[in-house]
């Protein structure tokens, strides 16, 4: 286990180095810098040049790169050019927002998706299966931002149950916090649920056709017991993979939904930084997301071994 972790962590360091190099290269290849956001369209190159100097953007690229890596190695992601604060601070301010939406969406997507998938497998080729699969296909086909807008029209404007957007920190009241993230979380969960349901159904069908399930049925065990005790644990391994993928997708998926609901999360921070060329935030934000992805994958790999003794971490 320790050797496995050490190997994965060493691999992760290489991945992070590559991610940071790629990010650095890409953002310096793309034209534009923060002065384009600070100045009017008619600003002259002279005005732009002057502001670049004032913001410290005139340093040579290798110098900026060295400076950045030096700071990152000491745990400092640098200073945002436009936000007047450090990148770490900006990320940590928004992390709870994004994580809470992603976690709630993931939980909902997995719980509802697995339940629906099992139901569809048990009623294979009958009407519950058709309904679940049609709904799943609908969920997969519908973009989350569209669903979000529909939710706003129905639940916020029509029924008035939820705010149309914005985010209330949990310190200002649990109920208000829950109301502020309910619609975006649900919109994200429903679009991912279809994916989980389809995978759960396929996985369960595969397991339910195995000999050991037939044996369990032949022993006279109840259908519920067979499904939950013998079927589900064996169907979990592919579902874990899916959950890992969805966790990553949700962290990325929040980008759009944060925009629709005006939620100040990590996704919106990075999108805003890309559009305004706030280089330190782009670099720090993407490195941070890469770390989260790697951690999620590591956890999923460890969980493989926990749910399936045949998998050995070596």
């Amino acid at each position, binding site marked *: 286990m320790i050797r496995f972790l050490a190997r994965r962590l060493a691999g992760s360091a290489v991945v992070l180095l590559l991610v940071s190099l790629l990010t650095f290269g890409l953002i310096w290849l*793309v*034209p*534009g*810098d*923060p002065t*384009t*956001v*600070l*100045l*009017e*369209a*008619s*600003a*002259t*190159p*002279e*005005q*732009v040049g*002057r*502001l670049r100097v*004032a*913001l410290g953007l005139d340093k040579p690229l290798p110098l900026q790169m060295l400076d950045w890596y030096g700071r990152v190695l000491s745990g400092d992601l640098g200073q945002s*050019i*436009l*936000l*007047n*604060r450090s990148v770490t601070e*900006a990320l940590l*301010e*928004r992390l709870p927002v994004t994580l809470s939406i992603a976690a709630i969406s993931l939980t909902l997507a997995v719980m509802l998706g697995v339940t629906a998938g099992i139901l569809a497998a048990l009623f294979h080729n009958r009407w519950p299966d058709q309904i679940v699969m049609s709904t799943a296909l609908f969920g997969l086909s519908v973009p989350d931002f569209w669903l979000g*807008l529909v939710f*706003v*029209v129905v639940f*916020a*404007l029509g029924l*008035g149950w939820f*705010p*149309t*957007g*914005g*985010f209330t920190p949990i310190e200002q009241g649990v109920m208000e916090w829950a109301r502020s993230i309910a619609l975006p979380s649900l919109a994200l969960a429903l679009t991912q649920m279809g994916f989980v349901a389809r995978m759960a159904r396929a996985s369960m069908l595969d397991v339910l056709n195995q000999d050991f399930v037939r044996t369990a049925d032949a022993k006279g065990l109840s259908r519920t017991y067979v499904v939950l005790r013998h079927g589900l644990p064996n169907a979990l391994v592919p579902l874990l993979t899916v959950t890992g993928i969805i966790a990553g997708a949700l962290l990325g998926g929040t980008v759009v939904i944060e*925009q*629709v*609901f*005006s939620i*100040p*999360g990590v996704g*919106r*921070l990075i999108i*805003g930084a*890309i*559009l*305004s*060329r706030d280089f330190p935030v782009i670099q720090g934000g993407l490195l941070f997301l890469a770390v989260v992805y790697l951690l999620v994958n590591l956890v999923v790999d460890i969980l493989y071994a926990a749910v399936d003794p045949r998998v050995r971490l070596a």
Partner: protein
Amino acid sequence: MTELTRRRTLGLGAGLLASSAVAAPAIAQRRGGDAVIAITQAPPSLDAHVTSAQAARNINLHMYETLFARDENARPVPELAETVNISSDGLTYVFPLRRDVRFHNGAIMEAQDVVASIERYRQIGASANLLAAIDSVTASGSHEVTIRLKQVQSTFLDNLSSPRAPIAIYPAAEAAKPANQIAFIGTGPYRFVEYLPDRHVRLARFDGYVPNPKATGPDGFAGRKEVHLDSVLFRFMPELGARAAALEAGEVHLVETVDGPTAQRLRGNARFTIYRLLPFSMQVIKFNHALGATGDLNFRLAVMSALDMEEIMAIAFPDIYQLDGSWIYPGSPYHTAQGTERYNKPDLAAARALLGRSGYRGERLTFIVDNNRSNIDTATVVQQRVRELGVNIDISVSDWPTVSRLGFTPQGWNFWCHGFGIEPFEGPASVMAPWVGGTSMIRKDEKIDAWFAELNAAMEQSARVRIFTEFQRHMWENAVAIKAGNYGLFQAATARLRDFKPYRIPRMWGVTLDA
């Protein structure tokens, strides 16, 4: 020395009297309330000196003030200065300062603060060229500042009062700090409370604010700024649908901009008021004179002759445009139809003849455009129109930072379109400046450069009008660039918001919010 010209002072007085009549009902109305304004994007900075972005101006001009500011008709009038005394040679400007002005930290504004702020702007200001004519700035008294110019500049007060990247007056201690590192302390009617990135900026009424005693009502960026609200929250809401939904749900009181269909839908609802802010900007199609066919006069004239401006404006800005060939907004003393005879005269036969005389031989040209819907629509209409002539245009869409960097280089583009909003409001010098030195068309135009210098030196307005008219004629006759028309914004507010008058920023002074 002559005091600020008699005509200007009389004009100011008349303007103030007129605006006081408009503002009178507000005085009897309720004090208090927390207004929420939905704006499309976060301000890139709350340091007013370093940004000329509209998103920043919307907020900053509630917190900061300038020595002179623009009135309702864009004329410069005293704000933090009592007046100005200009020497007979036009080189020395003495500004006696108001003695009743306090900063948000409680300190009285003094000459040293003004000197430090102007010096800072000259160093790091986003539009530092506005002050390029300054030779020296000195405190000639505790409440008097003297500015000496290197050469006569007729537009100096226009420049000093520019709202573009305002030459805001900060406390001297803040003015000593680098760009983006100040505490947000100004003299404006609202003080800074908090900035939560990606969420909002909150301002509160500054109770120590003394409205300009010489003014009697709101007047552009200047005038009497009576604040009835307790606070204003500027919420950043990039998504159009989310802004409209928030207004309908009662979560915001004013939306900076809504689209035409939303304005149309809300117009019939008594709970809301729809405002038309027109003109807000003018749509301009630029040519790269340094690259290929667009460097050819006959080709540019052919394109101009092929275009139907009404078609462009109606598609790109439905229901909120005006056809106008002048390079400055209607209402300006510089606005004239003279020299615009070639504007909006679509004639495909003439266009074909001009194209035949050009050097264009069917090569593919590039129209760069940012991802703003209206700009893409403009590019598409141009592409379709000139295709009828046999001109091949590829449209290349990128984000704004990419396009705005590429569009000032000689390679990679032939056409580029975007709005010019603040320039025509500011006046002729601002309209001409982007073309000086060939900046916006990538090839120097000696005539424009000469007119710009002449305009800056012409102290008589009649001379400036003549010069600007010549510039305007030159722009059309040489198709230096094509102005398609003026466009505006729809703004939507709850009917509870009273006495709001749309302007270049959503002014929150003089307005009240019913309970």
